[in-house]
């Protein structure tokens, strides 16, 4: 077959090219630009080389924020994934309960993030909030604006409330795609409920669960709005996760150079973890 050569086809690619350039490449390059320079305003820049990167990577402040971030992500994954699977397993499979459960489950996902933060802020206030007031009434010394432990507890609780639904919905979809014949076959074999979960449901949910973990990892690792509205990173810096710390540095202190360097480091961490995840997923795919 003869192929006709038509270079005009390139014109079809141009709109996408421009779009990607404006929404990804150009802003990113601005950040890259800042990260190697020092500015004193008035559009005056001085070349600094890798100084900001070294400074960030060696700073205790960054280490602390990163540690908080990893701890937070780890804890919420540890809670949300098993809890999500558990809820999905107990949800009805047919009848009127299905739409009711699905709607109830999607509700938290539909609420804007800053509203979630504001809601929980008021909800948890020790003097007038329902949660805070009740806890204090029960004899707990609870005050999330002053005690770091309480601030963490509230932030995690909020995230679990907001995002477990996503894991539930994904797991539920995974469970529903299992043919009833599998359950019958297991029943004939005399398999226990645990064995059915371990050897049929879990392997069959593997793909959606990998997706759920990846999504929840990325979202929680980049979390900003909700804890910002709830605690503002406080008390002190105890709930200042990476993105909150970054904004403090960039806008609060106007340290554009270090903030840009930190953004890039942050970006590479997320990229690296996603890459590792992606490869693990593909490896599993290749095996099966």
């Amino acid at each position, binding site marked *: 077959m003869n192929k006709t050569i038509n270079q005009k086809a390139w014109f079809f690619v141009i709109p996408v090219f421009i779009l990607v350039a404006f929404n990804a490449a150009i802003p990113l390059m601005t950040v890259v630009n800042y990260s190697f320079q020092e500015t004193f305003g008035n559009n005056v820049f001085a070349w600094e080389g890798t100084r900001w990167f070294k400074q960030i990577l060696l700073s205790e402040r960054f280490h602390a924020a990163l540690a908080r971030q990893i701890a937070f992500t780890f804890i919420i994954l540890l809670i949300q994934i098993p809890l999500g699977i558990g809820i999905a397993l107990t949800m009805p499979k047919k009848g009127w309960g299905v739409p009711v459960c699905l709607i109830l489950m999607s509700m938290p996902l539909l609420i804007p993030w800053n509203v979630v933060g504001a809601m929980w802020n008021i909800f948890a206030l020790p003097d007038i909030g329902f949660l805070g007031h009740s806890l204090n009434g029960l004899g707990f010394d609870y005050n999330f604006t002053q005690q770091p432990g309480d601030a963490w507890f509230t932030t995690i609780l909020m995230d679990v409330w907001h995002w477990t639904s996503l894991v539930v919905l994904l797991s539920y979809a995974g469970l529903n795609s299992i*043919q009833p*014949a*599998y359950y*019958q*076959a297991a*029943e*004939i*074999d*005399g*398999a226990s409920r645990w*064995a059915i979960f371990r*050897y*049929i449901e879990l*392997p*069959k949910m593997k793909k959606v669960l990998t997706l759920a973990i990846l999504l929840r990892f990325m979202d929680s690792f980049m979390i900003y709005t909700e804890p910002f509205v709830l605690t503002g990173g406080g008390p002190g810096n105890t709930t200042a996760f990476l993105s909150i710390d970054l904004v403090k540095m960039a806008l609060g202190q106007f340290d554009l150079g270090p903030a840009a360097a930190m953004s890039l480091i942050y970006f590479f961490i997320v990229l690296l973890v996603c890459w590792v995840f992606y490869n693990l997923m593909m490896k599993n795919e290749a*095996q*099966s």
Partner: protein
Amino acid sequence: MSLELKNVEKKVGIDTHIYPTSIKLEKNTINVLLGSTLAGKTTLMQIMAGLDKPTSGEIWFNEKNVTGMKVQKRNCSMVYQQFINYPNYTVYENIASPLEITGVNSNEIKKRVGKVAELLKLSAMLNKKPDELSGGQQQRTALARALVKDSDLILLDEPLANLDFKLREELREELPKLFEDRDCIVVYATTEPSDALMIGGNTATLLEGKVIQYGKTLEVYNKPENLISAKVFSDPPMNIAEIKKNGDICRLTDNSVQWKSSTKIKDGTYKIGIRPHNITTYKEGNNSVEINGKVQISELSGSESLIHFTNGNLNWVSLSNGIQQKNVGDNTKLYMNTDEFLYFDQNNRLVNNG
């Protein structure tokens, strides 16, 4: 050993899935449930297995009433249309799984799995996972799991339906041999009459939740009690026409075809059923009769030719050996083997054949 359904009925809401059915399956038999989709084959099997309870009626196994007894206590196994295996177990572990649950010791498991794997040609892939196998091998694994257990009752629910043609033929030939020396009752559900003929044993024809006829497969095929049973057990569909019999002369009611019949039924109006392979482009048997037709569809199916044609107001289907291409719209002559005609009375009951 025997499995007996006594007046078993299954209703779901206001729908009747199985009308009252009584059927007795004997030891060491293969029983084919033949019927189209939604005929109730799967429901009937699930009731036999104890996966589903009948609305009324009783199930007796070995002269014992087992109605309502749970499937785990019944020592039966089932193979499905979809290839059902534990996804993250190897083939070996899959086959061994029913034995492990019942606590058979590991040497015995090894021996039995090895034996059944050899029987099903799986010995080379015992360490693979189901996902790495072809469809045919996955279904062999599922079959091996069903066989390894020495069940009293083995249920096969359209086990070959999801396989491609070649694998289906291959496994279909092996199946009856697998069950030969086993002390069990096998039930095999299928939509394909050719499956039933190949497997032999007994056949029950089903339509819309009713068992129409149950008996030896060849008997059900050659002497269908009624028109419905004959229709269920015919693929391509059976040709049916009204005829008048006067003396030893029979003719289609539109007088287009007439033939001499030696059948000893009374004069009157009947229906005849003619299987497509008894209408051919060449003469077959000593008593064939010509029929003129206008070709509607002419197609090949393997090494056979399927010709749909009209004669008067009736549509006919013929199935001839070899490649017999006809042009659509042409008038053509075909031959019907009158010895193989099935005669039904006005109540659709078989009155005579031949």
